């Protein structure tokens, strides 16, 4: 809602803006195949402007966010001598993947107000409205989520990873890990001056399972019984086949 409003304001203010992003992606679709090993997406573009370049230096911030879903974070504590899950916090919406790439330190290239408005930094990309009522130290659960996802390569903050040439051409790469969930990955590019967003652009990278992966996944969700029976049949056939092949190999 908030960013939609911001976008509307942005559109309204467009004629005043002399600078606009022209964007290119090395790929607009990521296909998860059986041998998917992660992927790198090159995001590049240029700044289109009619007026001469202002004196104030420009910065670029790129964010890529996977589909958001509620996440349950649980904490272990010692009970009766063993470690057991005791506390739990449900975070309303956390992106399954989130990466930020910038031309410099985020607090320098973007003001706190703009960060809050556009939900750019990692903690702000996670929505946790109801969390405070579930535990006294709810922010520790959010921190844990960020820490765990960062270790998995799902969350990344890469300050200085975007290269900006002559205030006009920029490029940056986003690493997508192998353990990727499918969905629409919202990609946003912000141009900033003195911490203020002067122009922004949004596009979507489509991440999809394809081929066999797609087919198996859909079948398991839509026809679970058929999928279960098929799994059993395939497993028996594979076990039998491998054993027969092995015995034939021994004899031959």
């Amino acid at each position: 809602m908030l960013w939609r409003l911001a976008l509307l304001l942005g559109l309204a203010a467009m004629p005043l803006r002399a600078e606009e992003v022209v964007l290119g992606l090395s790929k607009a679709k990521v296909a998860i195949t059986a041998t998917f090993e992660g992927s790198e997406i090159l995001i590049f573009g240029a700044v289109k402007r009619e007026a001469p370049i202002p004196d104030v230096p420009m910065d670029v911030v790129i964010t890529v966010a996977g589909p958001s879903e509620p996440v349950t974070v649980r904490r272990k504590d010692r009970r009766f001598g063993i470690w057991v899950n005791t506390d739990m916090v449900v975070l309303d919406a956390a992106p399954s993947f989130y990466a930020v790439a910038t031309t410099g330190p985020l607090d320098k290239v973007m003001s706190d107000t703009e960060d809050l408005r556009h939900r750019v930094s990692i903690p702000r990309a996670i929505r946790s409205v109801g969390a405070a009522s579930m535990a006294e130290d709810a922010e520790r659960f959010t921190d844990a989520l960020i820490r765990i996802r960062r270790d998995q390569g799902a969350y990344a903050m890469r300050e200085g990873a975007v290269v900006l040439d002559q205030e006009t051409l920029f490029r940056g790469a986003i690493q997508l890990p192998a353990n990727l969930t499918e969905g629409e990955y919202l990609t946003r590019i912000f141009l900033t001056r003195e911490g203020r967003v002067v122009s922004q652009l949004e596009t979507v990278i489509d991440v999809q399972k394809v081929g066999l992966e797609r087919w198996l996944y859909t079948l398991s969700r839509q026809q679970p019984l058929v999928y279960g029976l098929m799994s059993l049949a395939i497993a028996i056939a594979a076990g039998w086949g491998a054993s027969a092949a092995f015995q034939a190999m021994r004899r031959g």
Partner: protein
Amino acid sequence: MQIYLPIAEVSVNAFLLLGLGGLVGVLSGMFGVGGGFILTPLLFFIGIPPAVAVATGANQIMAASFSAVLAHFRRKTVDLEMGTVLLIGGLIGAAMGVFVFNYLKSLGQVDLLVTLCYVVFLGVIGGMMFIESLRSIRNTRRGVVPKRKKHGWVHRLPFKMRFRTSGLYISVIPPLLVGTSVGILAAIMGVGGGFIMVPAMIYLLGMPTKVVVGTSLFQIIFVTAFTTLLHATTNYTVDIALAVLLLVGGVIGAQFGTSIGTRMKAEQLRILLAIMVLAVCGKLAFDLLVMPSELYSLGTDGAP
């Protein structure tokens, strides 16, 4: 070679899975157990989500047992009557197990339950086997012939039935109970339950050793098939790609295991198996007692 598992939604090395399957296959060939009790914890360890590991484990064991039971049918070492009674108990148990599993999953305690089950059962069975095989090794050295207990409390219960292949005339209640408890374990732990079933059949029901493995395999096929279907329809956690990779490795491993097993003495085999069971148990218990390096864990099931 990395492979993306469609249901688990993780990318793992295909050769690692083949190797794991092979290792477990060697064990199952050597000892005549399914190896699920080793496989499932190993799958947790390489980062497969526990729910997927448990459900896929059931699928893998089902297929592995299927190939094995054919050999036993040829040798006529399957007691079909006993197998059917155990099976009825097993199906009831599996349904109860999946229910308990889903309930605890919603509470966020499923990992604890699975680990605790492993620690308790592996500890008890491993300890018993260890002591028993030590004693029999000592007895064979002294030249004492072990005697089999003929009449226990098991023989005084009602609803007696004749089991021809096993040469038994006992009540159906103990086999039903054994079947039920193994069914529950199969659903919760993702194991066939052979490591519990086999000792229970020998020591509790007094079945002759030669029909025990075949009969246990016979009933495990149906219980694990049922468990697989229940997990597939209620949790959507059966990963066929994972199961097939583990199986192919497992079948090849089992061939090596069998040839190693025939070269060793029964007591030595049993004591080795006991040590291994105790080692897995010790590792899991250690993890429960020592403070974990990451206290927090994530779950995607949104409902509290």
